[in-house]
């Protein structure tokens, strides 16, 4: 059930994009994102989207993964552009919509072509020099992993809690499922903390 929101499932393939050094991909993603956000031009937005589509084709990202991962982004992009249309007019709205879709697509290209552990190794190496000022690179990497992993888990909890509220006939009242949902998220965080401690992660 939580598969519908998996943001970052790695798909093993043998393509140029997969073989690129993860650090290069992350830097490129950051540079691309900044360029897309900072460039204010509707026609150029389509050019950026074309670049993202090109990258997705080269990396042979499965269409299903794109569809699943962009569904939520599309909804947000639609709402955002609707507001933009209202405030600033059509061009700005189209630009925002296309920009958001392009950013999401590029993020999928990177996450589907890079194993999470390879990204973690890159982070650990990048943060390494900060060890001198008291930063623990392994811990930084672990925090990022947990943040990524928490998304599908939390959505699964939300769906379960909603079903439980429905089963008890508590209907649509937000309080009926928000309260238990928040409690369960915190409880899950405690369990995960115990599990991490038991696995000795963070002991280093």
């Amino acid at each position, binding site marked *: 059930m939580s598969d519908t929101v998996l943001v970052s499932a*790695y798909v093993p393939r043998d393509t140029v994009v997969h073989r690129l050094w993860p650090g290069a991909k992350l830097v490129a993603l950051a540079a691309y994102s900044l360029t897309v956000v900072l460039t204010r031009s509707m026609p150029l937005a389509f050019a950026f989207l074309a670049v993202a589509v090109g990258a997705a084709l080269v990396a042979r990202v499965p269409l299903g993964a794109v569809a699943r991962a962009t569904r939520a982004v599309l909804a947000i992009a639609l709402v955002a552009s609707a507001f933009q249309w209202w405030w600033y007019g059509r061009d700005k709205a189209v630009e925002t919509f296309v920009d958001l879709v392009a950013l999401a697509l590029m993020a999928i290209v990177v996450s589907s072509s890079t194993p*999470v552990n390879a990204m973690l190794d890159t982070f650990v190496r990048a943060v390494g020099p900060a060890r001198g000022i008291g930063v623990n690179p392994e811990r930084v990497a672990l925090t990022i992993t947990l943040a*990524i992993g928490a998304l599908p888990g939390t959505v699964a909890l939300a769906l379960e809690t909603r079903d439980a509220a429905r089963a008890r006939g508590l209907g649509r009242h937000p309080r009926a499922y928000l309260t238990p949902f928040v409690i369960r998220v915190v409880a899950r965080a405690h369990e*995960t903390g115990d*599990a991490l401690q*038991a696995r000795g992660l963070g002991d280093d």
Partner: protein
Amino acid sequence: MPTLALDGAGLTVGDRVVLAPTTLTLTERRIGVIGANGSGKSTLVRMLNGLVEPSAGRVVVDGFDVARQGAKVRRLVAFAFTDPAAQLVMPTCVEDVELSLRSLERHAGARRARAMDVLERFGLADHAHDSVHSLSGGQKQLLALAGVLAVEPAVLVADEPTTLLDLANTRQVADLLFRLEQQLVLVTHDLDLARRCERVLVVEDARIRYDGDPGAAVDDYVASVGA
């Protein structure tokens, strides 16, 4: 086998006695822990690797004090939980096992090879690149066990590892647990599993009610419920 020792170890939270001071020395290979919900079983076994710190007494694993040398003890004592979903933190199976191996194997290629070996041993090699969320309940528990056993600990403490599983998965996970070379401390409500141990503790109202032969321990527990 390693020696797990509780020396007057107990836990009191406010006025509530969660576990009365308990003294035990566990050296058997297969140790079962049974008893009612909320009787203190989980607290007892969580003390063995420092997840719960005793408010009185101390816990010593192979000479290491759990309170003072926690990191050393956790390298010796692995812990498996009832709900595997909470302990699987990485997106795919092989990555979750690799996470455990990070501190042992710095080189990414060697780490991957070792993680694949572990998955092979647990019958999960075909699922190496699958999302951990796509696994069945039994497979998730197998993966969680693979994750904690990958670092080759000396002891495995398992807190009701089969409670959420169907019969076939319970058998599969149980057979795996009893095949392990590691010392096993198994908290369970499955009395058949308890009978397969060498020594069984029955916990009731924050105390050890019975300690000894599995058959007699199970009979004692059943009798305590019937009364």
